[in-house]
């Protein structure tokens, strides 16, 4: 085993910020994120024997982190519902009585193929995610960021499938609207 992998000081210096930022994208709470990074590194210390240098140290640590973030979500569901409630009724998009859009879409002036290379857009989206209602954010993270299957989210987090689609649709609409305020207008 690489001797370096036991040096926990080096872990903190080298990966601390990376792990923390990765967690903050998923868990919009600096204290909780810091706690998750700590739990991750402690688990890494504990499991050091299982690290056989097959993967890079970095991806090994991120592998543990991913589990710890999902653990955090599982703990959350014990005292917070992930399912849609009547008071969550907040679709930001209005339609005309005949079912057409009330306003025409704003042109993003963007090549869809190259959108992901747009660092400003990535950062703006992170900012907009933080503005989502917490419940919408959690579901959006599980589905779009963590890539959990719909079945898994519904079963594990007690969300009705029809509600899952409603939440994701509204989360996307709110993100779209927020980007149009904070990103499109500034380009």
């Amino acid at each position, binding site marked *: 085993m690489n001797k370096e992998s036991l040096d926990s000081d080096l872990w903190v210096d080298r990966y601390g910020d990376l792990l923390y930022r990765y967690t903050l994208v998923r868990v919009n709470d600096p204290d909780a994120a810091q706690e998750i990074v700590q739990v991750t590194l402690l688990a890494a210390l504990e499991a050091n024997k299982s690290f056989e240098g097959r993967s890079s140290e970095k991806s090994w640590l991120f592998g543990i982190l991913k589990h710890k973030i999902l653990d955090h979500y599982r703990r959350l569901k014990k005292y917070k519902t992930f399912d849609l409630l009547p008071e969550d009724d907040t679709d930001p998009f209005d339609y005309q009585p005949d*079912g057409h*859009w009330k306003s025409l879409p704003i042109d993003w002036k963007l090549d869809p193929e190259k959108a992901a290379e747009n660092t400003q857009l990535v950062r703006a989206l992170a900012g907009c995610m933080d503005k989502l209602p917490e419940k919408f954010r959690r579901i959006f993270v599980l589905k779009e960021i963590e890539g959990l299957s719909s079945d898994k989210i519904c079963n594990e987090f007690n969300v009705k499938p029809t509600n899952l689609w409603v939440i994701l649709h509204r989360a996307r609409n709110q993100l779209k609207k927020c*980007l149009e305020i904070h990103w499109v207008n500034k380009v």
Partner: protein
Amino acid sequence: MGQQGLIMLKVFLSKLMNPLMQLMHITCKDTSPVISEMLDQPVSSAKYWRARIHLAMCGVCRYYKTQLEILTRVTHELADEDSPAKMDVSLSPESKAQLKKVLKSQQ
């Protein structure tokens, strides 16, 4: 075909199409959630075709679909280990010192 014939053809077609359109009556409001759902899972073929027919006729919804697809791509970029999303935040020096202390105590 003369002018008269053309008008009659148009009337005939609209007589044929109107009930069809009424029958389907797919609005943007109906289609937008389906566009979102289709990003996540295969939808029933009835839903799929209603959305496809509406999309073929409605440029606004087509652009909405493009925007949601962009959103998905950018979200995946955001999820990356080296994502630029939170570059401006770091653990404070105190937090790092504390973290090191905790880890050392466990070694």
